[in-house]
């Protein structure tokens, strides 16, 4: 009965076009699936009425043989994207019941192509987290569980709601966002595909800001082809975002099946970390073998400044966050908590509205930007970023794309890593470099851990060469033949 929810985005679009089923039918199936899956806590706002109205409008267009590239496709939207008339809080208390009067450019692009909105997806507060444990609405539960173990696992973060919703068949695909790995790590933890494009491909207008020089929109989906379809629709030049690139969005969908024959794939020796689990190492070796068998040439490369990426990130991201989040003063929107005077009101509002991890990062950011420390921290970190980018530029002289694991471990249980902030930060060790250098990176589900949990491989491309990510990603997907789905326990 709920078979429509199991379709890929590509198959659903074909079915809608062929009128095998209506947009209303598939939307209704998703609405029902979402209602029955509230225990996963993936959606923080459900918009069934809006979804059905959008679906009916899609059906009317499809009946006339019209319609956009996503006509009638039900999607989930990360709560980081402003959606007109639908509460948007980035899962922070400080935004109260904030209901935007405007639409983000990325979501507007999707509606312009006929997509249907099912609701808003849970995430770490302001996208600051790797386990979804910092959301004001409580954590998302990963649909996957370890074999013979019924403990709840994290879906990763910050786009944990997006990843869990796609893995649990609660939308065809979802929007997500990535500042240090927030698309790719949850995709790896849930057996889904996620890509962060080159910085500037997608507009940041209407995305709740975290760290403006790192934030980038992208999709999480069931297949590489689905990610290509959705990313194409999300990207555009936007005069409302001064860092948005004034360039054409290519046809990435056609890259997925091109194969890797003749491509040179770089393997960075610095990503072979001490203490990395054997199964991650084995998966990486397997990925290398698959690409070799498909006609790629494997090249050893060096990215010597890799180990400095995370510490640099934990200067740049908190510094930019402390500046961006200064706007939450309780005066113009969001929640206000009254104090004795104006400063007291600010301090009470922000102490009450921000969670512990956000407060911690705002204080780090304020500290590294405070008088006398700017050169020692922020400026130095931005210079280290240049060195990290230069490592990649040099490496790309001898290769066309880089293959790495996505994460150092599979999904973990709640509380397992929340005691020590630095241990939690290490989750992003393989993904954060692409953010600092502004490069595209995709995560592909490539195998299962000993405990039966999905593991991901990452492909990093040159600037503006998402095509390479889709080519290599497509090859890995075919070779891995990853079809495992979480057993439905919820």
């Amino acid at each position, binding site marked *: 009965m709920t078979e429509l929810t199991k379709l890929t985005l590509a198959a659903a679009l074909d079915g809608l076009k062929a009128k095998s089923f209506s947009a209303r039918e598939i939307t209704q199936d998703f609405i029902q699936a979402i209602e029955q899956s509230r225990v996963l806590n993936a959606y923080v706002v459900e918009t069934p009425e809006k979804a059905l109205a959008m679906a009916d409008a899609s059906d009317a267009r499809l009946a006339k043989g019209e319609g956009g590239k996503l006509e009638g496709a039900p999607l989930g939207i990360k709560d980081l994207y402003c959606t007109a008339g639908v509460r948007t809080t980035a899962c922070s208390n400080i935004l109260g019941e904030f209901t935007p009067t405007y639409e983000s450019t990325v979501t507007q692009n999707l509606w312009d192509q006929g997509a249907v909105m099912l609701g808003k997806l849970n995430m770490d507060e302001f996208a600051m987290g790797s386990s979804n444990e910092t959301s004001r609405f409580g954590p998302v539960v990963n649909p996957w569980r370890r074999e013979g173990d019924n403990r709840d696992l994290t879906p990763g973060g910050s786009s944990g709601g997006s990843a869990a919703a796609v893995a649990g068949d609660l939308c065809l695909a979802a929007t997500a966002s990535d500042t240090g790995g927030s698309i790719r790590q949850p995709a790896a933890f849930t057996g889904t595909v996620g890509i962060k494009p080159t910085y500037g491909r997608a507009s940041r207008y209407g995305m709740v800001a975290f760290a403006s*020089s790192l934030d980038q929109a992208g999709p999480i989906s069931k297949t590489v082809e689905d990610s290509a379809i959705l990313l194409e629709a999300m990207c555009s030049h936007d005069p409302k975002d001064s860092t948005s690139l004034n360039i054409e969005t290519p046809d990435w969908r056609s890259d997925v099946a091109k194969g890797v024959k003749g491509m040179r794939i770089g393997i960075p020796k610095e990503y072979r970390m001490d203490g990395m689990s054997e199964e991650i190492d084995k998966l990486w070796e397997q990925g290398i073998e698959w690409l070799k068998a498909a006609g790629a040439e494997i090249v050893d490369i060096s990215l010597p400044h890799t180990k400095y990426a995370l510490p640099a990130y934990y200067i740049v991201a908190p510094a930019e966050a*402390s500046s961006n989040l200064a706007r939450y003063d309780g005066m113009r929107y969001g929640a206000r908590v009254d104090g004795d005077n104006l400063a007291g009101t600010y301090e009470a509002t922000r102490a009450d509205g921000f969670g512990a991890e956000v407060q*911690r990062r705002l*204080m780090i950011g304020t*500290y590294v930007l*405070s008088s006398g420390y700017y050169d020692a921290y922020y400026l130095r970190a931005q210079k280290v970023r240049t060195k990290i980018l230069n490592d990649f530029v040099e490496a790309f002289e001898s290769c066309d794309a880089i293959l790495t694991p996505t994460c150092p471990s599979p999904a973990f249980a709640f509380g397992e890593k929340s005691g020590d902030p630095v241990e939690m930060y290490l989750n992003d060790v393989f993904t954060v470099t692409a953010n600092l250098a502004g490069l595209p990176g995709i995560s592909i589900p490539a195998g299962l851990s000993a405990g039966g949990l999905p593991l991901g491989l990452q492909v990093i491309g040159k600037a503006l060469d998402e095509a390479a990510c889709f080519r290599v990603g497509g090859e890995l997907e075919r070779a891995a033949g990853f079809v495992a789905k979480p057993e439905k326990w919820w």
Partner: protein
Amino acid sequence: MSVTKDDVRKVARLSRIAVTEEHVEDLTGELNSIMGWIDQLNEVDVDGVEPMTSVVETKLPMREDVVTDGNIQDQVLANAPRSEDGFFVVPKAVE
């Protein structure tokens, strides 16, 4: 460089976040451990290196200096915690 309790109090004030004295202790420990880990950046030789601006060489675009919106007072005030007669209501700012 280690973070002192006074640093934490100062940073909390600059961040406009009320922090209890009890919490200052915890935060001092946490910030010290994070800043200690960050200090490894001092090993990197950054002499003569330009700070990164963007991955794709771009010029910041200019736009026509014209009004592009307006007359949306109701939208601007729609999410205000308090408003009256078309104004935001805020605590007294001048003593």
